[in-house]
Every structure is written in C-alpha cells, then in structure tokens.
C-alpha cells in the first residue's frame, strides 16, 4: 500500500504556484503549497503589469490588488518618436499595474481557503522519485523533513530547481536572461494613464526601459538589459536615464530580477512533474511579462493534476496534456515573440527610429498588433522581410 502525504506539492507561491494550488484544491485534491521566502509577495521581482482580460477571466478582481489602471502604452524610439497604443493591442502586459505584495497574498489566501496547506519560509532542497510518486526533501526554519506526493508542480521561478531535478531542459543561457533593476519612484511627473517604454541601445542594450504608473506621481521605473549586449549592467543604464529624465524623484524601493527570455521550451513536464510560470520559461521573450502566462499555466497545471489523480497516471506521457494546453493558449505567441525579439536585437537605433517613424501616423486606437506589424513590414520590406510569415 502506498502512503502519500499529499496529492500535489507545489513549490513556489507566486501567482503561478498559488493559482495551481487554488485550482487543484478546488478540484478536491490534497495540496501543499510551499514558499521559500518568509513572506509571500515580497520581495517583488517584477514590474507588476498585467492584462485586464486575463485577470478578469480568472478572478473577481478586488480593488486593493490594483495600484493603477492604464488605458494604453506609449513607446519612445531613441530619437523621441512616440507611438501610442491602446491596452487591447499592446497585449498581455498592459491594463493593470498590480500591487504584487497584496495580489500574491490574496492568491495564496484563495488557495488556502480552497483547502491547500501553506508553508512559508520552507525550501525544497531535493526531490527523488519513489514508486509511483515523489519524495520532496524540505527545510523549514532549520528543520528538515520529507513529504511524499503523487505530483510536484514546480513554480519556483527563474532559478527553478524542480525542473533541473526532474531532468527538464530549462537551461537559460547568458544571452537569454534579461538582467533587470527597477526603482519604485515617487515625486515624478508622467502621464499616469499610460505605461511607458523606451527602446534602443541608447537606453537599454538588448532590452528596454519601462515606467509603470502606480499612482499619480509614483511609478515602477525599471530596465532590462541582455548581459551579452552590455558590460555595464542594468543599474548604471537606469541611473543615467533617471538622472536625465527624473532627477527630482525619490527612490523608495529597489527591485532586481532576472527574466528568462528563452522562448517556448520543448516540454514543461516529466514523470510526476509539471513546471509553471518563469520556471517553465513562460515569460514573454519580447515584453518580459510573465504574470498572465503564470496564472494561465497554474490553472492548466491544476486542472491536469486533477485529471492525473483521477486516472492514477502520473507519467510524462499523461502530463503532456498540460504541454498541449499551454502551447495551444500562448505557445505560439511565445514562439512568435521570440523571433521578433531576436530580430530587434539585431537592430541599431537608427533602424528602430526609422521603423517607428514609418508607423507614427497611424490611428492606433483602431488597429491590431498584427495589422500594425503588417503595415510596418509593408513599409519596410527589406528590413522586415523575414518576419512576414508571422503576420501575413
């Protein structure tokens, strides 16, 4: 006879992990959600932007989660050309700017309310497969113990261990991680109805600078750079930008993080194991946004966990249906945006200026992202010829 402590152990209580825990617990599974930090939701490693639609699709939104609602995005090219996009076309990372410290806890509370056990300040230190199950070694405030489950969901972030233990190829090469620094700034002037993005090597080699409003005079001002594109590190690039543009501001929080921009991985499952969110490299390689896909992935993984328990089948082959679900939902977008990101990495600032100028006259209230790209390709066929198959 087999004894299990839980049906599912979920490692990591970010949005992906808590969503998986909530979904699995609501389906009646015995769930343990562990978080290595002593606080869920802190420290934040994120710009906190998420699409309105995804949030509305999955939750009854509470006001306290949302720091600021925005109507669109303004993109600035190196020469200052601006493009204004509506939230709808700017996609997954525009709509709401969250208060992650509140949102992440709310999600963990929902998981707990659905019946999940939650342990904070608890790290998974190793994992081994046993007969038809997994044994996870845990360390909690110095105390070591192990728990046995049928499934493990690794929602353990960019530094995922669960994937490595399970033999899933989640390697992040040095050219596939955005090295990011962000300041929560206050006392600065900006249009708080929009998120703002500055493109070009002048600002952020291999990435961009963002400003996400969190209130009228307060915003997340951050940068991501590719380590292969600059030796100076994100912080010095950001400091220079702030010195030029927002010297009057005060920094009230420092945030750092690495965002995986690998594009879709072949599989996010192994026997008894599924990966979710950044651990599954589900962050968007063009925008770096990861919350929406983590929520979706967590939901899918929770659903598949239930199916696997019902079928008493925890094999890689069975869990592949989780791969199918995330690939059907956002796999193609990850693939497409990886191609666009690679293309953008090759562009110098002159080229970015030229492309932005070529579409600056369009009424972007009326146009979709696909339509915009088609127009841009038509106007710059030689520059963008290799992207045509993605949009036509």
């Amino acid at each position, binding site marked *: 006879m087999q004894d299990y402590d839980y049906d599912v152990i979920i490692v990591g209580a970010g949005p992906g992990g808590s969503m998986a825990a909530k979904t699995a617990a609501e389906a009646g599974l015995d769930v343990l959600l562990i978080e*290595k*930090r*002593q606080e869920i939701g802190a*420290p934040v*490693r994120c710009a906190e932007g998420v699409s309105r639609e995804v949030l509305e699709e999955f939750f009854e939104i509470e006001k306290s989660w949302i720091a600021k609602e925005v109507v669109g995005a303004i993109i600035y090219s190196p020469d200052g050309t601006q493009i204004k996009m509506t939230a709808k076309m700017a996609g997954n990372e525009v709509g709401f700017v969250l208060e992650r410290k509140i949102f992440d806890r709310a999600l963990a509370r929902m998981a707990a309310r659905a019946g999940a056990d939650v342990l904070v*300040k608890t*790290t998974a230190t190793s994992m081994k497969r046993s007969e038809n199950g997994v044994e996870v070694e845990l360390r909690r405030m110095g105390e070591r113990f192990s728990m046995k489950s049928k499934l493990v969901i690794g929602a353990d*972030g*960019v*530094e*995922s*261990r669960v994937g*490595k233990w399970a033999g899933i190829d989640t*390697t*992040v*090469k*040095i050219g596939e*991680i955005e*090295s*990011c*620094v962000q300041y929560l700034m206050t006392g600065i002037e900006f249009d708080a109805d929009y998120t703002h993005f500055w493109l070009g090597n002048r600002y952020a080699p291999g990435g961009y600078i963002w400003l996400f409003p969190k209130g009228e005079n307060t915003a997340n001002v951050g940068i991501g750079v590719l*380590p*292969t594109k600059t030796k100076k*590190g*994100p*912080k*010095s690039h950001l400091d220079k930008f702030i010195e030029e543009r927002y010297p009057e501001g005060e920094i009230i929080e*420092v*945030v*750092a*993080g*690495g965002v*995986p921009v690998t594009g879709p991985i072949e599989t996010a499952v192994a026997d008894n194991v599924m990966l979710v969110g950044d651990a599954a490299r589900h962050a968007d390689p063009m925008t770096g946004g990861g919350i929406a896909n983590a929520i979706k992935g967590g939901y899918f993984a929770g659903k598949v966990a239930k199916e696997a328990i019902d079928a008493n089948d925890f094999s890689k082959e069975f869990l592949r249906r989780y791969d199918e679900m995330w690939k059907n939902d956002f796999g193609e977008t990850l693939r497409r945006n990886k191609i666009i990101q690679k293309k953008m990495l090759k562009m110098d600032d002159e080229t970015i200026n030229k492309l932005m100028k070529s579409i600056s006259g369009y009424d972007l209230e009326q146009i979709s992202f696909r339509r915009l790209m088609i127009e841009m390709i038509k106007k710059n066929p030689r520059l963008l010829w290799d992207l045509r198959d993605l949009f036509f």
Partner: protein
Amino acid sequence: MIALPEQKKDGKNNETGKIVIDRYKCAYCAACIAVCKYDANVLIETFVYIDEEKCTLCKACVRACPMQAIEIIETES
C-alpha cells in the same frame, strides 16, 4: 574567432580565484542561479550559497547579476 579559455581536466578553466558576492549589493533576486549551468549556487532566502567545488569560474553569474554584486577575487593557487 573567439578564444575560449583553456580547460583543465576537471572542467575548470585556468583562472584561479573564487566567486564572491557583495552582500551589501546583492538583492537576492536569483538571476545568478538561473544562469548557473553547474548547479554551483543556491538561494537560501536572502543568502546565496556558492559551492566552490562545483563552480568553474565561468562568470555567467557575474554577467547576469543586475546589481553587479558578484566578482571573482584572486586566490593563491
């Protein structure tokens, strides 16, 4: 052509030294752990532990660190 550092038999390159993290700069974001191919580091809440036996001094973590908190210091070989 890109010159690769000479490899020793144990997979370490010829550099001597060790990785050190400036704890005052570190924001414990774990970017260094994400890029380590050798499983040579782990984030224990707010503390990055480095396994010097596994570390090959490949510098991936040095480059990925957003806070520029990681460097290689020379040691007597």
